[in-house]
């Protein structure tokens, strides 16, 4: 199985936020975490979430051309006083390794990484599997903590807690959302 060295066991109580809709749950969780600056690149599974973010007047939404660029923007936004997050496919993690090490780790900058994890169980496209398998290993190599909520209510509870950890650590934190999550 995948490497799971930095995976965190959630400590929340399952007593709030019963959602049937996965995108709505992640959106509400992002709001609850106080994330107010989001950069994004699309994935089919992130489409509805991106629309919700775009329509929210309290969130600055910046579509970017490449995830690495998005991380640079998030670092600047954090120094400017924002709480930044990125919406991306896990392929974007591969595009951003150097920025995560030589910008975020070096300067101790937090960011919430919401990642659609392709190449997981139920994947219809074989081409997604290699990066899908590499994704947890890359996170481990970068010593980035991550959560892997399986259900919408888990995501709703975990994401605000994850942001608090990111802020306390001064480090990026990952939310891996498998294909079956959606």
């Amino acid at each position, binding site marked *: 199985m995948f490497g799971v060295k930095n995976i965190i066991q959630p400590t929340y109580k399952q007593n709030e936020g019963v959602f049937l809709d996965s995108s709505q749950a992640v959106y509400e969780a992002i709001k609850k975490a106080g994330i107010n*600056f989001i950069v994004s690149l699309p994935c089919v599974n992130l489409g509805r979430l991106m629309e919700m973010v775009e329509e929210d007047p309290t969130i*600055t939404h*910046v*579509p*970017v*051309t*490449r995830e*690495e*660029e*998005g*991380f*640079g*923007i*998030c*670092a*600047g*936004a*954090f*120094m*400017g*006083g*924002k709480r*930044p997050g990125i919406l991306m496919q896990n392929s974007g993690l591969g595009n951003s390794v*150097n*920025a995560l*090490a*030589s*910008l975020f780790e*070096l*300067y*101790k*900058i937090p960011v919430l990484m919401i990642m659609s994890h392709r190449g997981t169980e139920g994947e219809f496209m074989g081409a997604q599997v290699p990066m899908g398998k590499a994704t947890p290993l890359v996170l481990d190599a970068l010593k980035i903590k991550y959560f892997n909520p399986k259900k919408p209510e888990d995501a709703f509870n975990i994401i605000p807690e994850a942001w608090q950890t990111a802020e306390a650590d001064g480090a990026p934190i990952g939310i891996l959302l498998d294909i079956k999550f959606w």
Partner: protein
Amino acid sequence: MKRIEAIEKLSSSLTDELVICNIGFPSRELHHLKDSPNQFYMMGSMGLASSIGLGVAMSTTKRVVVIDGDGSVLMNMGSMVTVCNQNPKNLVWIVLDNECYGSTGSQCTYASSFQLGDLAKSIGFINVFSFDLNSEIDFSEVLSSEGLVFVHIKVEPGNADVPVIPMEPEEIRDRFIKTIKE
């Protein structure tokens, strides 16, 4: 004109602007000429100066100046499209173009094969300044220009004999955040 001379002219024209300075010798030269808490020196993440600058510019009303290089712009060229479309009114993006990777031994870039200022115009930048090697540059005019500004300056290859920056990344980050808040 040498790059350090361009940076010196710029530095002497700065008042309370926030500065994001590119990795390697540009940051070392700027630090050597005049250090300031307003200046964020990049020690990694080559290519992301304009992205960090965009994130800062979108999070504050203060004027933000990015000191970039041709090799770095080529590494993150999508940023020109993102910055132009986001159109922050408080961002001045200065590219010091020596047509080479100056910090690694002056290997050639492709920057001699096209006009970066023309590219900026075709993307949609309105305020574009272009200076060749023998131009007299008046940075006060550049800095007082309204709205988003793109500045392309040809400089001679070569680095000044200046020491590395004797600061920890966190120190650079913390005082930069503090000065933005003030």
